[in-house]
């Protein structure tokens, strides 16, 4: 009984973290039609930024925010000066993001060395809550709260603001959106920066329990891909639901079918690709 409860709560926590990672990925994928293979690198680089800020004695939440802002700037610059030059050419864009991810990985190795870093959990969130003789780390619950706040903010922005309407128009049909006077290329830069910033913020949030080390980028990228393929590209609801589905599958799958640990995450993805290629909440591309 306690095993299942622990797993359930942990599933939700992992889902929250995955949402921070994949919300931006989904929007970028939906709007720009490219899987951004740098997304794991943004997550890792953000986490490293966070580590450096924390070493300077910066408050944990401030470090997460600063890291997100810094990464958003970098992401914006990459989009504006590199990806834009290749606009409309999806394959070169994907290759560019892949190449940059290798460069970022090696830069991180040079600057932060190969040693794993694990920032301490922020003091006010240390320890565990005890429910019915069962320990549960407070920090992971905090991540869920943060993810829900971010999800609400994103939802408000996408569904209730002019900017959000433009983004939705761009996702639905970029050429028509251009025709009615929306600066879709500006939206590209904005969304790319937003996605990068969110991933970096997620990286710092995840650092106290995932730790930061070379190779973290390559571990997170497939998770983002699975979530988005499952949920559907360009859909926030999809990313949200997909994250929690994967969170549960990951936890229960690894506990119940340990020998299938490698397949358990990809199986639902394959099913979705076969039965509903646009994803659970994706729209059929015209």
């Amino acid at each position, binding site marked *: 009984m306690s*095993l299942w409860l*622990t*797993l359930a709560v*942990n599933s939700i926590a*992992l889902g929250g973290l995955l949402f921070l990672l994949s919300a931006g990925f989904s929007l970028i994928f939906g709007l720009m039609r490219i899987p951004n293979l740098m997304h794991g690198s943004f997550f890792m680089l953000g986490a490293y930024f966070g580590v450096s800020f924390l070493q300077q004695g910066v408050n944990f939440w401030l470090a997460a925010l600063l890291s997100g802002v810094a990464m958003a700037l970098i992401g914006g610059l990459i989009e504006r000066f590199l990806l834009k030059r290749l606009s409309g050419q999806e394959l070169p864009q994907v290759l560019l993001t892949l190449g940059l991810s290798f460069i970022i*990985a*090696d830069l991180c*190795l*040079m*600057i932060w*060395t*190969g*040693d*794993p*870093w*694990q920032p*301490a*959990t922020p003091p006010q969130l240390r320890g*565990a809550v*005890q429910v019915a003789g069962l*320990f*549960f*780390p407070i*920090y*992971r619950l905090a991540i869920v709260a943060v993810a829900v706040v971010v999800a609400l903010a994103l939802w408000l922005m996408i569904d209730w603001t002019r900017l959000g309407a433009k983004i939705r128009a761009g996702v639905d049909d970029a050429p028509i959106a251009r025709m009615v006077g929306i600066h879709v290329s500006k939206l590209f830069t904005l969304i790319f920066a937003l996605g990068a910033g969110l991933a970096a913020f997620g990286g710092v949030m995840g650092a*106290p*329990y*995932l*730790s930061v*080390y*070379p*190779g973290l980028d*390559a*571990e*997170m990228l497939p*998770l983002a891909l699975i979530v988005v393929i499952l949920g559907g590209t360009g859909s926030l609801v999809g990313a949200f639901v997909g994250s929690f589905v994967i969170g549960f599958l*990951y*936890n*229960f*799958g*690894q*506990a119940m079918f*340990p020998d299938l*640990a*490698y397949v358990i995450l990809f199986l639902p993805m394959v099913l979705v690709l076969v039965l509903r290629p646009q994803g659970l909440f994706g729209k059929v591309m015209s």
Partner: protein
Amino acid sequence: MKVQRRTVLKGLLAASAAVAAPPFLRAQAAPFKIGLLTVKTGPLAQGGNQMEQGILTFLTEKNKTLAGRAIELIVADTGGNPAGAKTKASELIERDKVNVILGPLAAFELLAITDYVRDNATPLISIAAAEDVTQRKANPFVIRPSATSAQCCHAMGDFASKELKFKRAATISEDFAFGYEQMAGFQRVFEDNGGKVVKKLWPPFVTPDYTPYIAQISNVDCVFNGFAGSNPVKFMRAYADLGVKDKIPLLAGWTAMDDALLKSLGDEAVGVISAAWYSSEANTPSNKRFVEGMQKAYGVLPGGYSAGMYVAGQCVEAAIQILGGKADDRKALAEALHKVSLTDTPRGPVKFDQYGNVVGDVFIRKCEKKDGKLVNTVIKTYPNVSQFWSYDEKAFLGNPVYSRDYPPAKNLE
């Protein structure tokens, strides 16, 4: 990293300066070439960098001259994969014509090149732990001054059952050969002493969160973990966060509690008991020089990867001495390396069995917090531990190699 690269460059410059010196300043023979197969890029770079620091510390201490021979060090980055290891090994052997290879880091890299170094008659001093390279498939050109996967785990199994009086254990380690071999060694000795391994967990090498595995552990006296790389850092934090650490003591293999890892760990590591073939606390003269050298040059506490390469350097020096400086015949060098017997190395006395594997001390350490810093305090030393533990060598080699299914776990619940 920048500093390291610069130091490497300095080392190479110094080495090339020695080569470029006027002929009368040079020793009569060309420099003795050591090829280092290490990993400087990718996820395994942490251990690879430490290996390089270890051998550089040794060569600096010896002024780049071993037993009268000038030394040239050639560093090759395998990228941490078998194909890269093969390419770089052939570069070192065929282009650079090195006298001896140190490394590589990972077992799968070593397995990719053992036949190749034998065919090309180049001695290799390994730090990778794959059991069979010094057992059923022993290679006359390979020696291993570090340890086989299970060498320390045998001792841990003994300590856990006899001294800690644990009866029921769970094991957890990555789902690959190094993990299987470690857990098998622990299980064999622990169960031969009357204990029971009731649960064996195998998370994949890439596991973002260990909670689902830790949640399955209950009703045992101890958990033995054999994680490597950056995984132990993640695992131990989760183990403590879930409140399991206060209830079930954690035991560890050498990679999971390596001294070099301590700076990445926090309070979650306090109290963990580990078995390792190297301890930075060891009180030998060469270890003091080694630890000081590492502190001075890199500002770090050295662990097994650095120590392994330092000891490898000492073995090379001793072998050149045995050959009286005429160390250019690679076959003779391989034979001399097998005969090496050292009384003072950072890990204590070192000698080799007929298969080329070290017979040396194994330390049982307990992690403590002293003056705000984590240290692994040695609480017991098992002297002269062989890769066969106390088992008969012939019988040991008659069994299959340690694996996920051997020895069979009969007490799983």
